[in-house]
């Protein structure tokens, strides 16, 4: 396990946010969970800890599943997950759990092709076919038809997927399940799924590992978080959405996708296949989970203040870091719900 941590460190993802300005009698809040919003959360908590004297927040990006486990074991004050939390799991916590969507993100298909063609257009049937192992060549006629004027090599497509269980896989496979019966009945949706058996499907650990493997492998394609793709400067495909339009990640597509889904009362909204001509097809909210009953009222107050900070100053930072800011109605709903953290 230690080696995993070292690998994460070496790959440039520091696992523990250094606590800043934690004074002697300071309050220390600890959280763990999803790695996908980790770059954003660590920026938020660093700024918040610096601003709020006497309170420091530590967040460990261990993975969504590990965060939920930590919350169930009462080893943290809050957790974060890309796959929210099931009713079954929430029922295990005495006093209840408050789910709060904090930010949203897009998942992109990053690729590596000779000549670096920009913003390759991938129709739905094609990217579905690639991940089903049915479209195996970059020179596939469907791909050529969608991208006139782009020279596509007669090269095998190498699919890079996540080796570890991850929220990113959950979001991406949920999308594929939503658009295809065949996928739903085959691999299905989950944090790990049974991928098609092929020697052109390889797996790497974590978002960084997948990104590195794509960059090292000509002819590779894989799903990663937009922010990782943006900072690693890999080429990203524009994907065809439900309305038939090709939309690139990182623009107006994310907010449009969020706007297409109304937030239910339990704040657990899935955007598996958003409507609307401008919506980017693979987007998701990501959540923080809090105990409704905290033993220490001071701690509960600090947690509420932290949520408030994330909803106000925090949202301003998210777009620049490659995340999608929460729509105004969602911010209001989250603010209201955060009052139940007591």
């Amino acid at each position, binding site marked *: 396990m230690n080696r995993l941590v070292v690998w994460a460190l070496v790959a440039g993802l520091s696992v523990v946010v250094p606590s800043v300005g934690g004074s002697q009698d300071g309050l220390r809040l600890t959280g763990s969970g999803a790695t996908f919003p980790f770059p954003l959360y660590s920026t938020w908590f660093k700024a918040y800890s610096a601003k709020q004297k006497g309170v420091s927040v530590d967040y460990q990006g261990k993975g*969504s599943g*590990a965060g939920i486990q930590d919350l169930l074991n009462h080893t943290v004050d809050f957790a974060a997950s890309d796959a929210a939390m099931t009713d079954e799991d929430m029922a295990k916590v005495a006093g209840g759990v408050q789910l709060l969507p904090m930010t949203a993100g897009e998942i992109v298909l990053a690729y590596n092709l000779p000549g670096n063609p920009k913003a390759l257009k991938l129709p739905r049937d094609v990217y579905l076919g690639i991940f089903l192992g049915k479209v195996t060549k970059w020179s596939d006629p469907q791909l050529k038809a969608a991208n006139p004027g782009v020279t596509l090599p007669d090269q095998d497509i190498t699919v890079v997927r996540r080796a*570890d269980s991850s929220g990113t896989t959950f979001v991406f496979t949920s999308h594929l399940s939503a658009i295809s019966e065949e996928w739903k009945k085959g691999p299905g949706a989950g944090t790990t799924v049974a991928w098609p058996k092929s*020697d052109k499907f390889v*797996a790497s650990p974590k978002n960084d590992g997948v990104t590195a493997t794509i960059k090292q492998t000509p*002819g590779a394609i894989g799903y990663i978080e937009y922010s990782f793709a943006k900072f690693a400067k890999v080429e990203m495909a524009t994907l065809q959405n439900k309305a038939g339009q090709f939309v690139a990640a990182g623009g107006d597509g994310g907010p449009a996708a969020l706007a297409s889904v109304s937030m239910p009362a339990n704040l657990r909204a899935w955007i598996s296949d958003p409507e609307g001509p401008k919506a980017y097809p693979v987007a998701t909210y990501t959540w923080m989970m809090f105990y409704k009953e905290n033993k220490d009222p001071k701690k509960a107050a600090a947690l509420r203040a932290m949520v408030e900070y994330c909803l106000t100053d925090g949202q301003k930072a998210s777009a620049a870091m490659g995340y999608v800011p929460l729509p105004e109605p969602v911010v209001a709903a989250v603010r209201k719900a955060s009052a139940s953290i007591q």
Partner: protein
Amino acid sequence: MILLDAGARPASVSKPPTSWDYFADRAFRVMAQGAVWLIVLLLAYLLWSIGTKAWLGIREHGLGFLTSASWDVGRQQFGILPHIWGTLYSSLLALAIGGFFGVVMAIFLTQDFLPPRLAQVFRVIVELLAAIPSVVYGLWGLFVVIPAMRPVADVLAARLGFIPFFGTTLSGPGLAPAALVLAIMILPTVAAVSQDALRLVPYKVKEAAYGMGTTRWEAILKVMVPAASTGIFGALVLGFGRALGETMALAMLIGNSNQISLSLFSPANTLAALLALNFPEAGPREVQVLMYAALVLLAITLLVNMAGEAIMARSARRAGVR
């Protein structure tokens, strides 16, 4: 000399051990025995604690776990045949490469090919390889070995694709780069232990061989290496054991794909990589089967070591008879 003359005062020559001597002797014995038993207990505890956690998984999946090839958390179907295959295949490949070079290196460094000082320098350099962390090997493999191997692999797959070993093209991570990096990782173990074995053969044996009129190579291959064969074999077993359990570099290089293929260029998976990558986020039911897989890995390692011991004991006996 003086002692022999002083026969009149035997008391000064030998005196009965003091009670302190008795005490120290007994304390040491108890401590040594305790340490040995502690190791046995530790192993038993390890087996017990993994076993109890794996028990539910064993009961549910039985022996079919060892022969099934699908790992599907959503449908609760678990099987580790591809992982067992990948573990053994990658380790055997690594042993073939690393073992050969390790033993050759040991011969080169001990059989007077180099001035003693220079040999010492080389020895230290080889042993330094053991100090490089696994994850660094993994990154090196990802960024150096795979790109370097790709053109060679492409040519082999295109020209000799009819041979099952070259049946697929290299898509990046795969068995061949993983085995090559693994071979380098076990090289220091094999080289160091083989050197010790060769150095333990008395120099007189070699001189005697020269005296019989052998050439240098006859002396090395027909006298020195056979005399040290038990130790060299031990080195290979140790190296194989290390290869079986190696985790991080393999998790990064092998491609983690649950399939069984003879091709050197196709991705595979190993037990250790499966454990490392799936534990952090495993739910309670998955933990049971992962513990079962851990038990299987432990059993494989144990079997390999026991088989090694048995072969060494047999060859030692046969050497004794001769």
